């Protein structure tokens, strides 16, 4: 019903917006990034399936740095602080985000965690995302780089099955390579081939949190993030 004369006419008013659905998340992510950069903190969004070895990787990284770098972590899980407890025991200052039923972290959750001063004085901040190869891929958190942990027991074709996740990765860590003797059919070249089809700049480091193999190379890769990069991936896919 028309408010002016009661004639009952309804006009259709088109509004052109062309606005990213994640525009709000992206703004908060940019704010996080500026804050972390201003404080000299290199932040890494660590993603991967549940059980890919993300937490073990952080433990091994802390052992390898041996206190020479100050490490902090935000760990995301649906329930429990178990991952935060584990990385704390390894000497990493940690804060847990329990998401309830949410399948990913978003920039607002990370922003909230940063308010607890978790990254204060840190050289590196790891944001250990919820174990999931789907949903976390599109949420920019304000990280400097996206790293995906892919364990050898997940098979060689995961990148082809979850292309959005791997496309947004700056680095893939092939984890649990100490298990390779038990996987005689595992074909590392097949993983590399799969990555080349979904990542424009494929980069993979094979590591074992158990034996420490490859961890040195991973640390060097992290350290290179310290030098200024020409517009590193902002993580999430950008609208075209």
């Amino acid at each position, binding site marked *: *019903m*028309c*408010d*002016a*004369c009661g*004639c009952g*006419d*309804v*006009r*259709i*008013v*088109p*509004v*052109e*917006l*062309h*606005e*990213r*659905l*994640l525009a*709000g*998340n992206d703004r908060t992510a940019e704010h996080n990034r500026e804050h972390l950069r201003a404080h000299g903190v290199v932040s890494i969004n660590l993603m991967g399936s549940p059980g890919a070895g993300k937490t073990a990787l952080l433990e091994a990284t802390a052992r390898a740095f041996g206190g020479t770098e100050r490490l902090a972590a935000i760990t995301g899980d649906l329930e429990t602080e178990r991952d935060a407890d584990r990385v704390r025991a390894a000497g990493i200052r940690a804060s847990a985000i329990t998401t309830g039923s*949410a*399948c*990913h972290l*978003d920039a607002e959750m990370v922003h909230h965690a940063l308010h607890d001063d978790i990254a204060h004085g840190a050289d590196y901040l790891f944001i250990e995302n919820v174990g999931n190869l*789907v*949903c976390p*891929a*599109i*949420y920019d958190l304000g990280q400097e780089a996206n790293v995906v942990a892919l364990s050898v027991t997940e098979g060689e074709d995961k990148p082809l099955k979850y*292309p*959005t996740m791997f*496309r947004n990765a700056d680095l893939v860590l092939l984890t649990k390579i100490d298990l390779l003797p038990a996987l005689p059919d595992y074909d590392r070249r097949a993983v590399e*081939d799969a990555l*080349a*089809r*979904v*990542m*424009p*700049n*494929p980069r993979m480091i094979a590591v074992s949190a158990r034996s420490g193999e490859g961890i040195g190379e991973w640390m060097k890769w992290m350290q290179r993030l310290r030098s200024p990069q020409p517009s590193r991936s902002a993580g999430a*896919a*950008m*609208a*075209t």
Partner: protein
Amino acid sequence: MHEYSLVQGLLDRIEKEARAHAASGVHRVTVRIGRMGGVEPGLFATAFEMSRVGTVCEHAELELKTEDVRWACGVCGCDIPQGRELACPSCGWPARMVGGDALVLERLELEVNGHV
């Protein structure tokens, strides 16, 4: 199932736009989703159906435009077919995605009472 949180954000955004135009309802919502935008269009539509009850979008039609993935050479611009190695066959330069990662609220058609 991040589609539900995306739809919630979308509904909040539309609510704001509807208020700004003093709209009584929303006739149509057009969203563009790339095939590598990280969103499943079917799930998105279901999430919209379930979440819009009691909102300004209660009777709105959701129009989803899907967008194919397209890769091209970052230098010479030649097309690189999806599924191939993401490097230019001629110059070897890494491919660049030129379509298929959209997740965009394109357009609204608002229902506004009365004459112009």
